[in-house]
């Protein structure tokens, strides 16, 4: 996928997620709130795939941008009477972009374990600030009473999550179009080059550091938008959007789905959050056990995630078919 030899046209199979989403909207009306939550996580996972899967930046701090976006939208809606959903999104995106460019410029000269620790430190710092500034953020109690006006003045956020679902779906669709374009562009090919061999990229004259700062900022912006969506859907923000735990969960989701495949970001959150929803109802105290088991199985038997496994099966199947055809002759 991506690069100078690949066909950039959208293949029929790539429409499948959108067909599934619209199908879910009509067939599973009682699950739309969960669905909207899944959509926001898909957007967030997509932003992580851009830096981890394509540019090869490892991070445990992606919740800093998600959380900042969530709090920006929440504070505007709860404290400052800015209730227009698009204004909240734009403000969240801008705040996350600003944090992305300033922290990215600081930490992206490092790599591997140092980078991992620095990203973790940044989200923990943001988390502590959110906790201490309780006059603004509600602290440990969270920020409730977030006001979100009807979309375009027409569509109210309803109890069943119908508006929220379509709103998140449209936002995700637009983000997907942008990310997909980016990945297939020369810039995307260049990011793959940095991931595959940084020394070689330096040697062909690429200012690697600046390129990484830029993609990190773009990714942070998308993560901020995802965070704002979550706030608007829940009309509440809590401290659980910041720190190590949500970052780790997100990483697990993306690894489950498949890193660097664009659609791993779709499959991972669906599997993870559905499993979580089911397991938490069945075994409220042990649901993490099920998730852990799932991750172990994937890491042991499907290093490319669920999509990697599908790929292998597909290739085996088509080999089998072509050999069957050859022997039939």
């Amino acid at each position: 996928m991506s690069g100078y030899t690949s066909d950039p046209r959208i293949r029929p199979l790539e429409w499948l997620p959108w067909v599934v989403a619209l199908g879910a909207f009509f067939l599973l009306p009682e699950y739309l709130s969960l669905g909207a939550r899944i959509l926001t996580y898909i957007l967030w996972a997509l932003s992580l795939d851009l830096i981890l899967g394509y540019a090869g930046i490892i991070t445990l701090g992606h919740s800093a941008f998600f959380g900042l976006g969530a709090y920006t939208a929440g504070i505007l809606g709860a404290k400052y009477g800015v209730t227009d959903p698009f204004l909240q999104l734009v403000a969240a995106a801008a705040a996350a972009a600003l944090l992305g460019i300033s922290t990215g410029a600081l930490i992206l000269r490092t790599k591997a374990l140092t980078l991992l620790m620095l990203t973790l430190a940044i989200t923990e710092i943001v988390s502590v600030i959110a906790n201490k500034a309780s006059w603004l953020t509600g602290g440990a109690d969270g920020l409730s009473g977030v006001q979100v006006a009807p979309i375009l003045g027409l569509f109210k956020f309803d109890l069943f999550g119908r508006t929220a679902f379509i709103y998140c779906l449209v936002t995700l669709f637009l983000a997907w179009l942008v990310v997909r374009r980016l990945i297939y562009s020369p810039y995307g090919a260049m990011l793959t080059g940095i991931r595959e061999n940084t020394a070689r990229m330096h040697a062909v004259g690429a200012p690697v550091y600046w390129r990484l700062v830029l993609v990190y900022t773009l990714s942070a912006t998308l993560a901020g938008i995802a965070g704002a969506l979550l706030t608007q859907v829940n009309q509440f923000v809590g401290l659980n959007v910041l720190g190590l735990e949500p970052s780790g969960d997100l990483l697990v989701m993306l690894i489950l789905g498949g890193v660097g495949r664009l659609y791993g970001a779709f499959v991972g959150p669906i599997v993870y959050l559905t499993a979580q929803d089911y397991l938490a109802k069945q075994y409220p105290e042990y649901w993490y056990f099920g998730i852990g088991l799932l991750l172990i199985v994937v890491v042991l038997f499907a290093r490319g995630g669920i999509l990697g496994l599908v790929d292998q099966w597909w290739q085996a199947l088509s080999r089998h078919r072509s050999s069957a055809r050859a022997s039939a002759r």
Partner: protein
Amino acid sequence: MVASALETQKLCKSFGALTVADNIDFRLAPGARHALIGPNGAGKTTFVNMLTGAIRPSSGRILLGGEEVTKVSQAARVQRGLGRTFQITTLFRKLPVLDNVALGVAERKRASRHMWKPASRHAEIKDEAMALLATLGLADDARTPVDDLPYGRQRLVEIAIALGLKPKVLLLDEPAAGVPSHDSGRILEVLGSLPGDIAILIIEHDMDLVFRFANRITVLVQGQVLVEGTPQEIAADRRVRDVYLGEATHA
């Protein structure tokens, strides 16, 4: 005097008490075919890494086309016309051969900032990369991942990437390293056909290749320039025989 294509003045590098480059004065003439030889541990790789900007010298100056670049970043030196190949094959192993070359061409054309139009529709980049592959006899491998190529061809890809940068100065770090001798002929052929206006510095252990390719040779021993001269002068030099050629048993 015409400005050198590449020049170092009193270039020094020490790691603690260990001096690996000791006052190296070196001049690469425009269009030169110049070889740098020396026994293992002479500091050849360190010298090359200082030229490219991968490591900073402790003191001294580096001039590229007459302009000082001692403190200029690696990427900026490439943009000013300094290309290199690596002793240890440094390629995008999982990517197709075409992408390996196109990524370099795109950097030279300042095209990798484009974020919207698909890479495969940037014909100006693809066509140039394809043309380059064709001249090196790699056209049929364009869509093959580098990992699936025989080693000798991977060495050619290494050269193709460097040529895609249209360098004025080209540093070839053991271009035939590890290539079986029956395959190295093709590499020598390619080196022989490189455009005459590129100044080339080749670091090589294969004396056969050095003496066929270079018209000027510098011998580096323990971080110092022992002697510089034409291949005939070097072959006749007693000191060189003592420290180097006498013990040269490399294939």
